[in-house]
């Protein structure tokens, strides 16, 4: 029976008289292909020096030449050592414990070196504090091989020798000393006992010396408050593993709040044990990593935060405060207070408000609660900057009062809001020296650039927290003619001991108390009770802020609201911007916005609509955003706009660390410099915003997607249901119909494939606990470093060609919670309803729930990718890993199309040694970071997570060589080893006693998209949210 149906190709067909439809009936194209036009242009064709015949000759010749050349194998040279160092065996990695202390990131780490090259940063498990490396610390190894590093001392842009440098600077400093002019040391926070001692000696020698400590992103208010209350400059320490109720007012403590490093303690209580888990309530403006992890998140503007904190104080401690809050926030504050009171010593309050009164209020609440998580006795030493001292210095410099300025670890021309004043002041000094790894904004303005080494080439010591010491040791000889600041101080002090000996001596006399220095160096850390002599920064004491008598009411008094409020923040990837030339970090997608290579103004949907700002998705699935002019007190910058679900209405956010212009490759010069708006070192600013012309192209790896009620991707439940109901209510195994009977998808009868016997040997599984995972992304960079994953650049990321083997998906809820989404989806019926409501569900809520989910190759036992590969390039190993033989792959990409998890990555281009991708793999120096045990993939092949087979194989081989069995915990992947929160557990499930085997039997365990029945070897643990109100 023939059909009379008419098939429509285009709406144009509705138009009866359309010429296009008429033309298309006859021709393939509406317009002629302009071939004649091109070929008809005789002049142009003849003017070309290459005729068609010549062209063919060239092609033929080059093809023949290329194929002939390919037949000849290259001669490979092998050059052994003349004298091989005893500890180096080629092909075997050595590990050294060291400490990063770049003024922003402080962490005890292990450095993996191969043939003397540091290639990877790992966590130092011996360290009691700051033992986990975040994404930036993981990426810091690449900074060692930065091709733009300064290779020797410079004067006015030309290279000089160190002896010239010494002669000239010594002369100048002596002259200044004689003239009685002031010499200023402007440095990062070193927190280093030896450096403090050195600076004291320098002061003694040169007399009129001022030491100003400058943190680019200041914690000055918190330091002042701590100093006023406890008489010492430091930050109160918090151990969240002792807290069952956490209330945070604007503190991004899973990010960089007060130096960071709180996430491992936090995650411990996030895993429900014996029916209990911690409850975390977050009051904040920007959607931060911490807010995303909170059990309850209350968006509010920065000025409301102050009132909320004051009210919290009054509800918990007592007293009354003025100021009013919207009723729902008021309610939330009351509930939080009640919960805190109930928790008593198991409660803790933290705040990120840069206000000495706010910080004092928090101390008082915590003391009132007797909080066990609050530890003022071992203060954090890694932030010591003083805003007032810095501002005074800039004023003095401008007034011409400063004779010399020596800077180390700081880049004030980039990070100061009044950078032009600083530059003007710099011109008035008689001597200006910058110790820097780059000719950055500051170093290009100083007379001398003293080439500084990377921390992996330096000696050093750090007091991370009071009594917790750590050592920095070089893991490679200095690559260039560099000298660290401390060595230069020793020279200026007229000493000829090396800094290494100096540290040894300092430690021997005042820290170790008889313990072995070599042991401390081996461990990288030392915990001692002996107090060290701290440098007397008299300047800092006089200029510290003092909280007012009644901090809470002073706090509310300072809460003035006018217009939009901007909160400046640091991104997990970029921090304060020191590592802006690090392509790994540039390409690292922000955990919240999932956008790489940019910073942007985050704004709520309501505000954006009111201001006429918008985000839109373009044809290739990428995101475009409007530009906005952001003005603070006359300073205006133009930034792209990102509409951020969860951003408090009336507030906007902008990240530091971008918009650098000097000392980095052109590709890395991304974003705008937010430091320009960092007036008076206050992260909160009143701003006016207006729309600007143009559209910005973002490189997002994921848009602002919602989960759309698909509970089989992220399974989530509340603590109450988890405790009271059976597993099938909150973690049901999907069923399929077999003979009209519901059969669990995991049962063998409904399987397309025959099961192999995997009970013999090892069978690797990876468990990811969605409760413990904070989304910090350390695993993403660790994977990058371990597996030689290429960086593809902004335009390629925008085309969804990012190469990350491990991604951390971020999902928003469309309703208030994911549970709401599920209900809404289940209640959709009928065509009309589904059209409208599914459409609504695509949009994230104003204050959505957020969930993070690390996804890598799931190593399916019944892998759909393996069956479609025409050349059998991907196959399954007995140990559970899905193998990928790159040399066999011909690049059909069938596997990627057949992968339900979209974890396969295709090499569209040759990413190494290609000028089009001018990142670390394009120069010899940058390639030094490559892991020699993992092949660098070429163009046209598919790649993906291998479950770090090179690491599992190495563990097996080591055991075979020693003739022993493998203990649980020995097997690690790069991601599981990097995970500081214990969310990722890797191991052998055939070892029934192993942690991962037990996790596989856990009732929270589920597989991603289990209903497809591919039997993955990666499992997830259901996310449980503590929604129990007090």
């Amino acid at each position, binding site marked *: 029976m023939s059909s009379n149906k008419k098939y429509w190709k285009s709406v144009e067909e509705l138009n009866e008289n359309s010429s296009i439809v008429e033309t298309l009936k006859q021709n393939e194209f509406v317009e002629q292909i302009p071939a004649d036009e091109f070929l008809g242009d005789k002049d142009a064709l003849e003017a070309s020096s290459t005729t068609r015949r010549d062209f063919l000759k060239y092609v033929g010749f080059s093809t023949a030449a290329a194929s002939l050349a390919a037949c000849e194998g290259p001669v490979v040279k092998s050059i052994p050592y003349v004298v*091989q160092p005893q500890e180096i065996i080629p092909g075997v990695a050595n590990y050294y414990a060291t400490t990063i202390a770049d003024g922003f990131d402080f962490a005890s780490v292990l450095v993996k070196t191969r043939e003397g090259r540091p290639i990877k940063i790992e966590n130092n498990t011996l360290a009691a504090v700051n033992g986990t490396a975040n994404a930036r610390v993981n990426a810091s190894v690449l900074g060692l091989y930065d091709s733009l590093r300064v290779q020797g001392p410079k004067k006015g842009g030309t290279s000089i020798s160190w002896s010239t440098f010494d002669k000239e600077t010594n002369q100048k400093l002596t002259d200044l000393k004689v003239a009685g002019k002031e010499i200023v040391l402007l440095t990062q926070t070193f927190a280093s006992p030896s450096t403090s001692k050195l600076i004291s000696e320098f002061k003694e020698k040169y007399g009129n010396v001022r030491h100003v400590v400058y943190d680019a992103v200041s914690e000055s208010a918190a330091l002042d408050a701590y100093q006023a209350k406890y008489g010492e400059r430091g930050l109160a320490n918090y151990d969240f593993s002792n807290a069952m109720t956490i209330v945070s007012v604007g503190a991004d403590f899973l990010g960089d709040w007060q130096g960071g490093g709180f996430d491992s303690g936090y995650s411990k209580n996030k895993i429900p044990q014996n029916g209990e888990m911690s409850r975390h309530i977050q009051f904040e403006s920007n959607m931060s990593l911490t807010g995303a992890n909170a059990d309850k998140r209350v968006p509010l503007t920065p000025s409301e935060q102050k009132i909320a904190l004051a009210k919290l104080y009054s509800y918990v401690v007592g007293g009354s405060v003025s100021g009013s809050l919207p009723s729902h926030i008021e309610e939330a504050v009351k509930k939080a207070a009640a919960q805190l009171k109930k928790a008593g010593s198991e409660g803790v309050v933290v705040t990120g408000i840069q206000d000495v009164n706010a910080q004092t209020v928090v101390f008082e609440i915590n003391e009132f609660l007797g909080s066990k998580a609050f530890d003022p006795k071992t203060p954090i030493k890694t932030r010591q900057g003083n805003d007032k001292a810095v501002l005074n210095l800039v004023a003095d410099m401008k007034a011409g009062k400063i004779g010399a300025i020596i800077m180390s670890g700081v880049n004030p021309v980039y990070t100061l809001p009044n950078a032009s004043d600083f530059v003007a002041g710099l011109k008035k000094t008689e001597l200006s020296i910058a110790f820097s790894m780059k000719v950055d904004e500051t170093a290009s303005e100083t007379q001398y650039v003293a080439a500084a080494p990377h921390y992996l080439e330096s000696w050093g010591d750090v007091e991370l927290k009071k009594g917790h010491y750590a050592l920095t040791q070089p893991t490679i000889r200095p690559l260039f003619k560099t000298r660290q600041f401390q060595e230069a101080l020793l020279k200026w002090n007229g000493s000829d001991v090396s800094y290494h000996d100096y540290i040894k001596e300092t430690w021997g006399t005042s820290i170790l108390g008889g313990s072995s220095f070599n042991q401390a160096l081996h461990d990288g850390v030392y915990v001692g009770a002996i107090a060290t002599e701290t440098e007397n920064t008299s300047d800092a004491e006089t200029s510290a802020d003092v909280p007012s008598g009644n901090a809470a009411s002073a706090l509310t008094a300072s809460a003035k609201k006018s217009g939009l409020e901007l909160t400046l923040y640091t991104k997990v990837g970029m921090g304060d911007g020191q590592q802006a030339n690090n392509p790994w970090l540039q390409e690292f997608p922000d955990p919240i916005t999932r956008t790489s290579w940019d910073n942007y103004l985050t704004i709520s949907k309501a505000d954006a609509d009111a201001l006429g700002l918008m985000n839109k998705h373009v044809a290739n699935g990428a995101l475009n955003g409007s530009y906005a002019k952001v003005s603070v007190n006359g300073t205006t910058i133009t930034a792209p706009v990102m509409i951020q679900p969860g951003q408090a209405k009336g507030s906007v956010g902008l990240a530091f660390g971008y918009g650098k212009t000097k000392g980095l490759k052109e590709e890395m010069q991304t974003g705008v410099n937010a430091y320009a708006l960092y007036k008076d070192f206050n992260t909160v600013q009143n701003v006016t915003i207006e729309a600007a012309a143009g559209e910005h192209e973002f490189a997002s790896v994921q848009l602002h997607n919602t989960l759309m009620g698909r509970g089989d991707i992220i399974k989530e439940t509340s603590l109450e249901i988890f405790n009271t109901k059976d597993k099938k209510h909150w973690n049901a195994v999907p069923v399929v119909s077999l003979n009209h009977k519901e059969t669990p998808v995991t049962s063998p009868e409904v399987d397309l494939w025959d099961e192999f016997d995997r009970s013999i040997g090892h069978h690797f599984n990876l468990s990811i606990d969605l409760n413990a995972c904070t989304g910090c992304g350390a695993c993403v960079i660790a994977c990058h470093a371990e597996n030689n994953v290429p960086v593809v650049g902004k335009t390629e990321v925008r085309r969804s060609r990012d190469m990350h083997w491990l991604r951390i998906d971020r999902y928003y809820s469309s309703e208030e919670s994911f549970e709401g989404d599920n209900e809404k989806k289940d209640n959709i019926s009928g065509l009309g309803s589904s059209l409208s409501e599914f459409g609504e569900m695509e949009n994230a809520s104003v204050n959505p729930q957020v969930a993070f989910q690390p996804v890598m190759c799931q190593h399916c036992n019944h892998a759909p990718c393996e069956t479609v590969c025409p050349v059998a390039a991907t196959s399954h190993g007995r140990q559970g890993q899905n193998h990928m033989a790159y040399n066999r792959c011909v690049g059909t990409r069938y596997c990627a199309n057949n992968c339900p998890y979209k974890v396969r990555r295709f090499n569209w281009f040759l990413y190494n040694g290609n000028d089009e991708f001018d990142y670390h793999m394009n120069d010899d120096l940058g390639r030094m970071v490559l892991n020699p045990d993992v092949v660098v993939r070429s163009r046209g092949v598919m790649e993906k997570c291998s479950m770090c087979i090179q690491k599992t194989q190495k563990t097996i081989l080591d055991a075979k060589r020693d003739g022993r069995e493998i203990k649980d915990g020995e097997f690690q992947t790069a991601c599981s080893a990097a995970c500081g929160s214990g969310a990722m557990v890797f191991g052998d499930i055939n070892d029934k006693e192993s942690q991962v085997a037990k996790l596989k039997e856990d009732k929270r365990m589920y597989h991603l998209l289990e209903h497809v029945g591919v039997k993955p070897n990666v499992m997830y643990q259901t996310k449980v949210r503590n929604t129990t109100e007090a």
Partner: protein
Amino acid sequence: MRKVIHRKLSKSILSLGLIILLAFTTALSAQGDPAKGKSLFNANCAACHQLDKKMTGPALRNVEARLADEQGLDKDWIYNWVHNSAGVVKSGDAYGNKVYNEYGGAAMTAFPQLSNEDIDNILAYTAEVKAEAPAAAAGGAAVATDNTASTGGVSNEIILGALAILFILLAAGLYLVNKTLRRFASAQNIELPEETKRTPLWKAFVQNQFLMLVVAIFFLLSSAYFVYGYLMQVGVDQGYQPVQPIHFSHKIHAGDNGIDCKYCHSSARTSKTSGIPSLNVCMNCHKSIYEYNGETTPEHSKEFYDGEIKKLYKAAGWDDAEQKYTGNSQPVKWVRIHNLPDFVYFNHSQHVTVAGVECQTCHGPIEEMEVVSQHAPLTMGWCIECHRTTDVNVKDNAYYTKIHEELSKKYGVDKLTAAQMGGLECGKCHY
């Protein structure tokens, strides 16, 4: 004064005595057995002393006579020195201290186990006259062999040339005969029988379509065979034998001297790479081995080998005359022979230490190779073949205990091949 005179007197008496002794020493040393002495010397002294060359310690040829002549020291001094040199130095002996300081203030190892008789034997060996140039004789022999070789070549050529001339003469003769016969024929008007024009063989062949098809198929198949063969050897460098910057003979080291492979290639035990020894490993032995005294061939003479040792000294920055490092070293750029592609992971320690595979299994008879060449094809087929047929060495290895037990039950075999252990999986070598 008297004392002085006495001393002088005693000294002169002593020297007189020495002269007498000297006269006897030759006789005495003649009593010592140079052959025994040689073996004792090689066992005890050769690590630091040579007969004609300064090493860690001084050259020892004619040491006894020299000491007596130049220093006036007798044999007892030598006995004392050998038995306890440190003691001699301590006692303030002038010459003893001089030598001690000259050689970097390192005391000679004491040899209390050597009896005076042993020392006599050694001294007898050191007193032997230096043998003169056996090399010359060897050289002569080489020339002789050369000559015989070249005569062989000439005679062959002559025979061949003679045969060729004979052949040309024959051909010319036949042609002339033919020509003469034709002339006779034409002279006598005898008509030569015209050959019937048959279709030529090649034409018939071309016209036969079946044959053409068969030939075409044959041609295609054989060319495919050769193309395949050609392509399959691309990148296979079996027999690759590059010239190295220093002619290092594995035959002499591993073969003649029987040095264990892993003495130099020590990282083969623990690492993925076998490791090319660093120059300090070479110098462990070559500090004292400064010349080659083994078998030589015309191509590789003693001078040639000694020259190669000189190259090593230059690279390591060793001043052989002064017996010390100059600090000017130059790393040696060896040419790598066994090259695996980047996408293959191979680990020596897995094979050498765990599996206990002999080096020769893959690298061939290295101990016979004057110049090393690539013995194995290093193709994947070659790897797989071995993994299929080789039993895993599970003995006394606790790692394998459980898996071996389970797998052998599963496969019903006692021994397991690498393949049965999963040694054929792609990801085991490609990642």
